[in-house]
Structures are given as structure tokens and as C-alpha cells.
């Protein structure tokens, strides 16, 4: 198991390097000009100076290696210094600088991260908590009215894109009923009970939209996995031993059915970050997705490069976690 994990981690390094190269090349080959949005009155020589100050006149391989060094060596060292308080003598270390704001990209990401984590993380947990009982019960009562209704609702949740469900809940709950605000206020700070209520109120709509999608995906998996297990021999044995129905289902079957579902949950984490781009846009949540869209529209290549790469790292990492979890949870799986 350990050797498998180490081998996969080593495999991940060339994969990630290759992905970062692909992202870099796509961004670089694209005919976009970071000075294109500046006023037209700027003379060409000043424009060339600006490009030089952004480091754009270096050849492409130098820029790529520089980014690699900044992202993989300098930023972790800075983080290490920040955490431990030690001084490793890094005053001349260059950082990945955003072209739009001229501040380090990693700092901006750290600033935006809490918003995304709050909304998306809550939605993911809520979605899972709703999905599991639905999946369990509809598999246990297969073809019952509950199962039919549950299947239909998950199908609907599967099919409604977040940009429609988001707008729909805004129409219903924010415009017509006026229960919740339609825009997520990022500057809001939780200090006492009342502000906590406001925070919860503004989180409800985006969380609802994201949770609908997550619920429908996971409850379908849970149901299918439960159905696979319910017809197995060990279930009949457990019943024949005289165990109560609740023990058979909730202890024996659910535990075994959770194995594939947990890997699906792990695999879904990076997807939720990606899917949150649209939900963040609909509710104006000032998170990572919002940052990415703004950076893309502004031609801010370092920010786009770093963010996309972080998404890629998340995908590779959670793939690895899912595989390892599968091996730990299921004794039949042997990777050696």
C-alpha cells in the first residue's frame, strides 16, 4: 500500500509538470496582449516598456522555468518562513505577480479561498448528508413510490444546469418572496448572533443550488451501490442469523456500499471547485471562480496559470486519495 502510494506520488510529478506546460503553452500561444486593455493614448515605446516590465520579452522557455521556480520553490519557502517565523534569507526571491493588481497571486488566492471554501464546502457537506439517506432508502424500497420520486428528482437535479437553477431560486426566493438576498455580500463579517443569521441567510441560496447537483450525483451512486450489495449472499446469511432488519441494512449493507461512494465523494471535491465557477458568478460570490473569470477577461496570465494549475493539482491529488482510500477500505483490492 505504502509503495503504491509512493509510486503514484512519483508518477504525479511528471503528470503535473506536463499539465503546467500545456497550460503555459495554451496561454502563451494565444494571441492575447496583456497591454491590450490599456488606454490607446499610451505610445508604443511605453507599451513596449510595460511589456518588458512584465517579463514578456524573455524567451518562452525562460519564462516557463521562471514560473516553475517561483511557484514550486519560492512560494513554498515563503509559506514556510511565514509559518515558522524563521528567516531563510529570501529577500530577493521573486514571487508570481498578478498583472492586474501587481500583488502576489498566492496572496490573492489566500484572500479569496475562505469565501469559496465556506460556500462550496457547506454545500458539499449538505449535499452528501441529504444524498446518503435518500440513496439508502430508495434502494431498500426499490420501485416504491419513494424510489420513483427520488429517481425522478435526481434526474432533474442532474439535468438542470446551475445557471438556471440559480436564476430560478433568485426569481422565487429573492424577487418574489424576498426572503433571502440574491447577492452574496463578501464583506459581511460575523461578529454576533444577528450577523450570523444574515450570513446564513445569504448562504442559503448558493448552497441550495450546489447541493441539488451534489445530492443528485451521490444519491444515484449510493442507490446503485446499495442495490449491488442487497442481493449478495452475505445479506441473506445475516438475515438467516436472525439479525434485525435495521442491523442488516444499516450496519452490514451500508458499510459495504459506502466503499465506492466514498471514492466518488473524494473524486467530486475538485469538480465542485470547478463547477462553483458558475454558481459564484450567478450569486456574485467573490471566490476563486470569480477571480479566475476576472483574470481571464483581463488577460492576466500569471493568475490564470496559477489558478488553473491549482485546480489540476486538486484533481490529481483527489484521484490519488480516492485510489488509496479504495485500497484501505476494500480488503479485496490489492495494488501490489
Amino acid at each position, binding site marked *: 500500500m505504502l509503495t503504491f502510494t509512493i509510486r503514484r506520488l512519483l508518477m504525479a510529478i511528471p*503528470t503535473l509538470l506536463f499539465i503546467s506546460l500545456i497550460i503555459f503553452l495554451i496561454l502563451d500561444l*494565444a494571441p492575447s496582449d496583456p497591454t491590450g486593455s490599456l488606454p490607446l493614448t499610451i505610445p508604443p515605446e511605453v507599451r513596449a516598456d510595460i511589456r518588458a516590465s512584465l517579463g514578456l520579452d524573455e524567451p518562452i522557455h525562460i519564462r516557463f522555468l521562471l514560473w516553475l521556480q517561483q511557484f514550486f520553490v519560492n512560494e513554498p519557502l515563503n509559506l514556510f518562513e511565514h509559518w515558522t517565523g524563521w528567516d531563510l534569507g529570501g529577500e530577493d526571491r521573486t514571487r508570481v505577480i498578478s498583472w492586474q493588481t501587481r500583488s502576489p497571486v498566492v496572496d490573492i488566492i489566500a484572500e479569496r479561498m475562505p469565501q469559496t471554501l465556506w460556500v462550496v464546502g457547506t454545500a458539499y457537506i449538505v449535499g452528501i448528508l441529504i444524498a446518503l439517506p435518500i440513496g439508502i432508502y430508495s434502494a431498500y424500497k426499490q420501485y416504491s413510490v419513494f424510489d420513483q420520486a427520488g429517481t425522478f428528482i435526481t434526474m432533474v437535479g*442532474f439535468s438542470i444546469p446551475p*445557471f438556471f437553477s440559480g*436564476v430560478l431560486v433568485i426569481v422565487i426566493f429573492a424577487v418574489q418572496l424576498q426572503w433571502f438576498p440574491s447577492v452574496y455580500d463578501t464583506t459581511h463579517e460575523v461578529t454576533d448572533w444577528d450577523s450570523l443569521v444574515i450570513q446564513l441567510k445569504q448562504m442559503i441560496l448558493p448552497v441550495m443550488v450546489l447541493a441539488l447537483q451534489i445530492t443528485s450525483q451521490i444519491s444515484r451512486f449510493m442507490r446503485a451501490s446499495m442495490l449491488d450489495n442487497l442481493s449478495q449472499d452475505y445479506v441473506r446469511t445475516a438475515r438467516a442469523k436472525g439479525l434485525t432488519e435495521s442491523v442488516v441494512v444499516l450496519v452490514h449493507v451500508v458499510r459495504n456500499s459506502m466503499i465506492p461512494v466514498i471514492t466518488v465523494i473524494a473524486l467530486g471535491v475538485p469538480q465542485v471547485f470547478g463547477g462553483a*465557477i*458558475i454558481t459564484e458568478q450567478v450569486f456574485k460570490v467573490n471566490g476563486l471562480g470569480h477571480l479566475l473569470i476576472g483574470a*481571464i477577461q483581463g488577460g492576466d496570465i500569471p493568475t490564470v496559470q496559477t489558478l*488553473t494549475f491549482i485546480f489540476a493539482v486538486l484533481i490529481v491529488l483527489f484521484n490519488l486519495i480516492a485510489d488509496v482510500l479504495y485500497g484501505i477500505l476494500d480488503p479485496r483490492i490489492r495494488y501490489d
Partner: protein
Amino acid sequence: MTELTTLEAQTYQKQRNQWWDVWDQFKTHKGALIGAGFFIFVLLFVYLGPLVWSIDSQYIDIRARNQGPSWAHPMGTDQLGRDMLARLMAGGRTSIAVGLTAMGLALIVGTFVGVIAGYFRRLDGVLMRLTDLFLALPILPLLLVIIMLFRDPLRASFGPEAGIFILIVFVIGITSWMPTARIVRGDVLALKEREFVLAARSIGTPPHRMVLRHILPNVLSPIMVSATLGIATAIITESALSFLGLGFPSDFPTWGRLLFDGTDWLQRNPERVIWPGLAISLTVLSVNYIGDGLRDALDPRIRGR
């Protein structure tokens, strides 16, 4: 005489095409049947609808702007007085065309990679690493980046509409072939060990004929299922791009674009958001149900049960 007719009936039954069995099984799935009916209805609505509803989707009647539903405009009009029903038909044509072509592209690439990887052992490792690599790419951010950056040159060389159509179909197709490739590869690997393949090889069938004649027809069912699901994801991805303002321009509407344009008039005319949204959701829902039914119908273990 009666024996003869029953015998005839039996031989007739035996010669029955297997697609009739598939259809019989498909018919038992209520949701899939309704889904198929609705999808055909949507196709008729967007392709033959303009013959009945002859208002031009680009016709601007500024005096009739922002109207609610009426007999003259059953779905109201937008802020320039363009008829929403006609725009919904025009948008649906683009959305469905994008969905079908992108799905076709993804299917061709996915099947090709899957069959080659499964059949030729030497290429398996390389191609599957490539598939894993594509699966590890963050799709939506990359789509946004690619479209943002390559939109203008393509527009300049192919015209505003064809250029953006080619770009969107290409990026959706090129980023969604991986699941098909994986499924097809797994099936091909299993098929390769079967006796009929061995028999075909022993009479000297060359590889290309082997793939076309023996392998491909047998992996058709997973390909068809991923095709239907591919249409659904392609339509949703295209709408998402249009919704983020990075898809088709406003005078060349798609359902996603109509929804995006409608959000600015949400308080005044909420139906401008609801109609395109419903069109996207119901089409995707029906396609998903068709895929569900096809999966059951094409599985010989379930069929006839």
C-alpha cells in the same frame, strides 16, 4: 396447415432483427419513451417551427419591446422587441447543432483512441496515460481560457458565426472524449480474448478489418449510451459558456445566451429566463432518460426479463 403457419411464424421470429428486441425493451422504460418523444418534439419545434411561426428572430420592432405574453408574441418580446418564440427556435437550432456535432467529434476521437488502445497492446500504455492526462485537466477553466484567447482570430478567418461555432464544437469535443475512450478500451480488451476473435484471426483477418468487422459492432452499445449522455453534457457546457458571456454573440442566440441576456430583465420579465432555462433542462432531462433506457435496452442480460 396450422403447423406450417406456426413454423413460418417461428422462422419469422428467428429472423427478427436484434434491433427490434432492443426497441421492445426500450418501450418498457416509460421515462425513456417519454424522453424520446419529447426530444423528437424539440427537434420538430426548432427545425420545423419556423415554417409555422414565420416571424424572423432578428426582426426588431422597437415599439413592441419588453412585452409580456400575448397572442401576437406568445412568449413576449425582448428589450429590442424581437419575438421570443422565434428566438427560442433559432437558439434551439444552434444549441442542438452544437450538442450533436460536439458529441459526434468526441465520439469519433474517443472510439478511435479506445479501440486502438485496447486492440494494439504497444499503444495501450501511451494512449491511456494521455487519457489520464486529459482527465486531470481542469476542463471548465481551460475551456474559458481557450475560448477567450482564440475567439478573435477564428472569428476573423471564418466569420463571426461559423468561427465561434467551430471553436465551441472543437473545444467541447476535444475535452469530453475521455470517458468514451476508457469504456471502449475496457470492452475491447475483454472482446479480444473471445473465441470469435481468435477464429477470425486464425483465418488471417488483417487488423483493420478485424476492428471494423468484429470489434466495432460489438462495442456499439456503450458507444451509443455515451453518445446520448454526450449530447446532454455538450448542450450544458455550451450553455454554461454562453452564460458566462464567452459563447455565441447576442445576435446569434443559443438557449444559454438567451438565458444570460434575460437575467438583466429578471424583475420585469422573469419568463425571459424561464423559457430558455426550461428548454435546456427539459431537453437534457429527456436525453438523459433516453440514455438510461438505451443502457437497459442494449444490455442483453437485462433484455427480455
